[in-house]
Each structure stands twice: as structure tokens, then as C-alpha cells.
């Protein structure tokens, strides 16, 4: 086993007459590919948090005026920024595939007026919206639209 779980995990409300051994973690915990994927999914949170602050910085500089904006924009070509943004892109795609491909189609409300659609349809819809939004944002930012 891979170490002990929380000593009170699944503890009975009252201690029984027999002494029990403490609960163990599943042996597959760290090594299992599924768990590693799950922990990586959680770790993308760090990347998202930093990405949010990077865009805050950019908007802040845009508010300061032309010079500040041009400096901020050109500083993005520093290899460290490019590496971080590449990591962000990988994280975003990973989160999108895991959340839109597997998690969100499962989460349709089963009660209420909206009919329950097949998971495949929901998946296709979400992926469609994602691709369309990305395309429109890219075209606008690259100066093709507007």
C-alpha cells in the first residue's frame, strides 16, 4: 500500500469493541496512470492562476498608454514567456479535452425542462463552441476581423 490514509477516514461514529488497524491508501495511488492524469489536471490550476495574472498585467499596461503597451507586448517574446505560454496552451487543451470530452457531458441536469441529450451530442456541441470561439478570437486578435 502507498502509505496510510487519514487516520479517521471512514471511521465509525462510535469506536467498536475491537481494535482496528488504520485505513491504508490504495496501492495504485501515485503510480497509476489515471491518478497521475488526475493530479496533473489539478496542477493545471497553478498554470491557470498565473495565466490570469499575466493577462491582468497586459491589460494594466494597455491602460497606462502606448509605450507601456508596446513594451509589455514585446517583452512577451522573452523565451521564458514563450515557454510559459506554450505550457498554458498545453494545459488549456488538456483541461478542455478532459472536461469537455468526459466530465461535462455527464453533468446534464436530469430534471427540469431541458431534455437529456446523448453524451456524444453534448460533447460535439461543446467542442464546436470551443473551436468556434477560438477561431473567432484568433481572427480578431490577428487583425483579420474588425
Amino acid at each position, binding site marked *: 500500500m502507498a502509505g496510510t490514509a487519514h487516520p479517521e477516514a471512514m471511521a465509525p461514529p462510535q469506536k467498536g469493541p475491537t481494535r482496528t488497524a488504520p485505513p491504508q491508501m490504495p496501492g495504485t495511488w501515485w503510480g497509476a496512470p489515471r491518478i497521475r492524469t488526475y493530479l496533473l489536471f489539478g496542477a493545471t490550476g497553478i498554470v491557470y492562476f498565473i495565466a490570469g495574472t499575466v493577462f*491582468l498585467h497586459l*491589460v494594466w499596461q494597455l491602460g497606462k498608454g502606448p509605450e507601456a503597451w508596446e513594451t509589455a507586448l514585446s517583452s512577451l517574446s522573452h523565451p521564458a514567456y514563450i515557454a510559459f505560454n506554450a505550457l498554458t496552451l498545453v494545459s488549456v487543451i488538456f483541461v478542455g479535452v478532459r472536461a469537455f470530452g468526459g466530465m461535462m457531458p455527464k453533468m446534464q441536469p436530469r430534471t427540469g425542462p431541458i431534455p437529456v441529450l446523448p453524451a456524444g451530442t453534448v460533447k460535439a456541441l461543446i467542442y464546436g463552441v470551443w473551436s468556434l470561439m477560438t477561431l473567432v478570437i484568433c481572427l480578431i486578435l490577428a487583425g483579420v476581423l474588425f
Partner: protein
Amino acid sequence: MKHLLLILEPVIWLLFGAGLALGTMLLTGFVLVVGLAIPMGIVPPEALNYERAYGLASSFIGRVILLALIALPLWKGAHHVRSLALDFGGAERDGAVGSLLYLAAAGVSVLGIIAVVGL
């Protein structure tokens, strides 16, 4: 602390969910162009010269989108890092860790609002 987090849980979860869904959808395009294509010279930087960037950003829709782009990933990040901390055996510190992370997300979100409104 933990009690307050419990009351706010639906709001936090909605912000997290919005960050996961909408944040991901917004980030993809922005990171592709602003973070990668322009710095790597694939798209000329003139596409986002000051006049054009300011014009896009200061429109009402532009402001709303930029605020979402800044704030939503913060909440997705804070919530995920909290559950990651719990996975490494932090049940006792969960209330403190959660409060700290959400406060950070809220703080940076407020800066985001100031930045976007001040454009």
C-alpha cells in the same frame, strides 16, 4: 473560516465551473495569438498595435471579455490548487489553504476589475 467557505461554496463552485469552461475557451485563442503567434513572429505585432488593441479592449464587449479572461482562470486555479492540497493529505489545513487561495483569487479579480474599468 471553514464555515464561511461552506456558505460560499455554491458561488465558488460556479466561478470555478465558469473558469473551467469559459476560461478554457477564452484562454485558448488569447494564448495562441497574444502569447505565442505574435511573440514568435507568426502574426505581425502591428495587428495589436496600441490604437487597435485599445480600441478592441475599451469597447463594452471587449471589457467584459477581458475581465472574464483575467478573473475566471484565477478561480479555476484557486479551486483546483485547493483540491490538490487536499489530495496531498491537507484535510486539517483545508480551511486555511482554501481561504488563502480564494482571497488571492478575489484580490487579483478586483485588480482585474480596476484595470478593465480604468481602460
